[in-house]
């Protein structure tokens, strides 16, 4: 059993100072693509959390058996299987959302966060710790996306979760729902977090 300190650090690192999106700048493709509607973003996030967690556990559990030279193939196969499970489940039980997310569910396979965590963490750590790492990496990815989606949907369409919030007087910012809007929002997010929050923490040390 790992020390409690390590467990806590494993959990908080990907959420805070080692966040996959705004520190490591991974998973940007889907960050840009699915964040123009809150609903899609939340479903996508759940899919990613599911995949990072389960693929982390599985790869970690198999780490003693996976031959080093085919490890990438094995990882990809495991990750792809979990992603296809997400895809099939959405297709069967949430066909509307599945239609809207389109190819992006399948593209979770190529999300660098999952492969990155598998390579960097799951291969060298026990299954329990990898589960925590996968879960928190997924959460670290998700909350950034959800914050971005919140502002993009609100400013871009005046709605949240498809419900009108801002009313008639609001002029929709078309750029917010286009990919460039995601670049701006992500940049602003990174700027605020790194320029303000993280600097203050450093100064406090």
């Amino acid at each position: 059993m790992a020390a409690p300190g390590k467990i806590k650090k494993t959990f908080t690192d990907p959420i805070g100072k080692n966040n996959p999106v705004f520190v490591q700048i991974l998973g940007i493709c889907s960050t840009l693509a699915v964040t123009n509607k809150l609903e899609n973003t939340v479903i996508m996030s759940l899919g990613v959390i599911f995949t990072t967690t389960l693929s982390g556990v599985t790869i970690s559990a198999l780490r003693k058996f996976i031959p080093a030279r085919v490890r990438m193939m094995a990882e990809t196969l495991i990750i792809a299987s979990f992603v296809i499970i997400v895809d099939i489940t959405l297709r069967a039980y949430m066909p509307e959302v599945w239609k809207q997310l389109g190819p992006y569910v399948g593209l979770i396979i190529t999300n660098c966060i999952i492969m990155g965590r598998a390579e960097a963490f799951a291969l060298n750590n026990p299954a329990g710790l990898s589960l925590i790492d996968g879960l928190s990496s997924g959460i670290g990815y998700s909350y950034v996306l959800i914050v971005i989606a919140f502002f993009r949907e609100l400013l871009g369409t005046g709605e949240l979760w498809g419900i009108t919030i801002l009313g008639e007087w609001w002029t929709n910012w078309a750029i917010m729902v286009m990919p460039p809007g995601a670049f701006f929002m992500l940049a602003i997010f990174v700027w605020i977090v790194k320029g303000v929050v993280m600097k203050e923490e450093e100064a406090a040390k």
Partner: protein
Amino acid sequence: MKQESVFSTRVYPVLFMVILTVVFISVVSGIYLTTKERVLLNESLFQKKAVLYAAGIDFPENQPQEVQSIYEDRVTEVDSEGGQPAYFKIQLPSGTTGYAVYVRGAGLWGEIVSIFGFQPDLKTFTGVEFVEQNETPGLGARITEQWYKEQFRGKSGPFELVEEGASEESNELDAITGATRTSEAVLKIANKAAETARDKVEKGGK
């Protein structure tokens, strides 16, 4: 240094991958097979809703059985070659016989597949539903929103595009601000819809 055996460098990795693949593919296939029926049901329900919507027939959104029975009452599928009917013969709310056809065309990023519903004259739209599209989310993809689809009812081509929210005449279609290319693509599709319908219905009528 330990000498690596042929087994550990050649045989084992291959064996490992084969076993891993078989195990995971079995699990995925199992899940696929157990949900297959549901997926097919979803798809057929989706098509039925699309036809009813295009024909301007009201149906309860979340009651599949109700949709099914309304569909069976009102719609006849004609020439179901390979699953997809050539056209649909529909008893419209007005009591007359209308038609609906699949119309396909190029969108901005991919194919747009739509179902157009027609009055008995095969010229005037009863409505439209877009069943497949890959337009830009939030811009071109707004063709699937109510306000956009509703504007087609009672209109007949050839059409002209006007600014978003400005269409008044029966040959004018609202464009979508910020999605000019998608608007043009839909215009093209709408313009060829009547011809497609005439072709199919007359061919099927022989």
